[in-house]
């Protein structure tokens, strides 16, 4: 390896590795060896000769002593200065706290909100099943139908019937989604400006319902054919309002945002202590 010492000074010159043709000869020879496999064996033989020659030439250039050339040092005028000499520090104003809340809800509040919202949205969902299909199992099977392995194009009567596997799958999907979205609410509501219930309870369900409306045909065409978007939206808004209300009515806890970063990280750093005596680093 060439070290700084090998690239060193000698009077007004600097030692640098000498230019050499052997790398290009070696590369050409190696390529010809491969090219011969798809052209003619003579090409590979020529490549092998070049590789051996290049290796010999290369070794002779670095053994026992590496060939180098002395490059004369030229005087260059280098100016390292900036026209912008004034340094300004960014001041963090208090309104930036709007995005980094000083107080937030505990994790448990999101869990409670998610469970409450999940239970509340059962009401419109089951109403939809009873009014539309005279069966509470219809919405359950729509959600958990993927768990009924033998179903391929089920009839409406089949979907309206009770299927224990679909019930289990539906409960898992519903509980998981409700709790996860509830946790998201717990984290996000303190950051939403002004009317968190309207944003979290109505606007957000509207947005994700719109997203699903646009994409469900691709994700699950069978489900897309049967879904009633009015009822779906009603159940989502019910969830959003109840989960948001439960979260918003939990007591808040202080975050560590008001503390300096280094204290939050629990490390010692410049800025916390006197910088006197640091000049030795120069």
């Amino acid at each position, binding site marked *: *390896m*060439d*070290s*700084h010492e090998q*690239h060193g000074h000698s009077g007004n010159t*600097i030692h*640098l*590795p*000498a*230019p*050499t*043709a*052997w*790398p*290009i000869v*070696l*590369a*050409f020879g*190696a*390529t010809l060896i*491969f*090219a011969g*496999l*798809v*052209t003619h064996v003579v090409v590979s033989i020529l490549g092998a000769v070049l590789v051996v020659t290049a290796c010999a030439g*290369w070794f002779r250039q*670095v053994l026992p002593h590496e060939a180098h*050339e002395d*490059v004369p*040092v*030229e005087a*260059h005028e*280098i*100016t*390292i*200065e*900036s*026209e*912008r*000499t004034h*340094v300004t520090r*960014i001041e963090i104003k208090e309104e930036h706290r709007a995005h980094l809340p000083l107080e937030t809800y505990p994790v448990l509040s999101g869990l409670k909100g998610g469970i409450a919202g999940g239970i509340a949205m059962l009401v419109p969902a089951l109403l939809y099943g009873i009014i539309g299909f005279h069966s509470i199992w219809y919405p359950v099977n729509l959600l958990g139908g993927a768990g009924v392995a033998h179903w391929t194009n089920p009839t409406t009567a089949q979907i309206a019937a009770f299927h224990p596997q679909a019930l289990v799958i539906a409960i898992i999907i519903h509980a998981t989604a409700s709790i996860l979205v509830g946790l998201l609410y717990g984290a996000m509501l303190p950051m939403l400006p002004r009317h968190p219930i309207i944003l979290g309870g109505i606007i957000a369900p509207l947005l994700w319902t719109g997203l699903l409306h646009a994409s469900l045909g*691709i*994700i*699950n065409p069978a489900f897309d054919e049967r879904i009633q978007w009015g009822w779906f939206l009603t159940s989502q808004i019910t969830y959003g309002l109840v989960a948001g209300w439960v979260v918003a009515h939990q007591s808040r806890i202080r975050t560590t945002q008001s503390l300096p970063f280094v204290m939050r990280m629990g490390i010692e750093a*410049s*800025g916390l202590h006197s*910088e006197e005596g*640091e000049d030795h*680093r*120069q």
Partner: protein
Amino acid sequence: MADSTFPVPGALEAAPHGRRWSQAAFLAWLHDWVVTVDHKKLGILYMLYSIFFLLVGGVEAILIRIQLVRPDMHFLSPWVFNRVFTMHGTTMVFLVGMTYIFGFANYLVPLMVGARDMAFPRLNALSFWLTFFGGILLYYSFIGGYGLYGASSAPDTMWWAYSPLTERAFSPGHAPDYWALSLIVTGFGTIGASINVIATALCLRCKGMTLMRLPLFVWLNVVTSFLALLAITPLTAAQVMLLIDRYLGGHFFDTQAGGSALIWAHFFWIFGHPEVYVLVLPAFAIANEVIPVFSRKAIFGYPAMAAASVGIAFVSLGVWAHHMFTIGMTSVGNTFFVLSTMLVGIPTGIKIFNWVATMWGGKIRFATPMLFCTAFLFQFLIAGLTGIILSVAPWNWQLHNSYFVIAHFHYVLVGAIVFCIFAGIYYWYPKVTGRMLSEKLGKWHFWLFVIGFHVSFDTMHVLGILGMPRSIFTYEADRGWAPWNFVVSIGGFIQAIAVLVFAFNLVHSYFKGRVAGNDPWDAWTLEWATPSPPPAYNFAEDPVVTSRRPLWDIKHPEDPDWRYE
């Protein structure tokens, strides 16, 4: 050692020894470049090679877009279309993407760490020439690929070369052989260059340049090089296995004789997905230098940026099978690769947030390099979001092998990588040549390219959702794809015009550009402390640094960075 200016005739006039433009002088000049082991010259050669093949790959893209501009077109035959399609992908990934990395790394890593050359200068030259001849061998297939049977020409099995299509029964002649052999040769070059970058960054740092003071550009190139070493190996192994199948009667991928096509897919994508990060991390490296300098602020969250780069590289080694959701894996396999793919979003998100935080509150100068980096931020975010969409297995089942996937990876490869390459060229061109690129032409280039890019690739997402499969050479008029394809092709032409403006700017500014001086951007890393272009030895004296921004410390002695690091 000769001067390190561009290898164009104008360099002769600029040469210090007053050579005249004659055959002898030309040969002497050519000899200098052929036998050079100087990292700067090799970096320039890598970049010229990359730009040349960018133009070649661009021409192939235009041919594809002409063929698809209307339904039932026969501008190209299906066979020629397959070759052009394959060569476009192979060229852009292996001959453009892989070489721009080492172009920038070769030129800049030694300068940034305060070294006089790469750790292994002769290996450096060997690596470049292997890459060079590998590319020549690949393109020689257009005239030499007929082989024994008169069948086939250039490779036509797409850049991923899925088995069993590449077996002799389905691909007689030598097209797949040229593909495999040429990439084995360029792969050796990549391995040599990667070893060199790692050794240089770790062993040749100047005094005071601790790992936590390395410019992020160097950090990311080290990570890239480690990743390249890990990624290239399985590809080379698979290509050797393919050749054994084709010539020595092996059955690795021969499904008629107990082999498995699935093994090829695994081998290829174990290389293929880390490869995306091998290509994009150096683009991030460029953004890491450009964004702070043009925001006039230090990079936000340096340790997090370095850690996120390592994190991306680590996670990227475990996501390959998200290219294979439709092949039919187990639920456990699908779930693992869905989750691991989503995991990449975390370190990538850290980077995007940190770039935005670097710009926040800064006095931003929208010079051409910064324009390209700003567009990169938006486009890479969208590319990441469509990546998350595609990481969800059920979505992927619907959209796989559609133009949605093409749109997604062109958002990464063009929207992120090519934009950053342009940013890097505009940023460091003054250092390499001593002259500024024209800002006026640069802005024309930027706006044409950004408009063309969005016209093409935003529209391509729609084509994918409408169900247009990739790789088809034409389509019927009743599919509803015609107007969208027309728009995509128009965008392609706009991008081509932008690239021509760029090429003109490169040449024109070399002769007529404003003299740059050593530090035209008021930047902070060590390369700007050398003349433009730097002398062969880079630094007359070994530099000593005390912070991550050594030039800032010199320019602002009253407020040096080392107080805060």
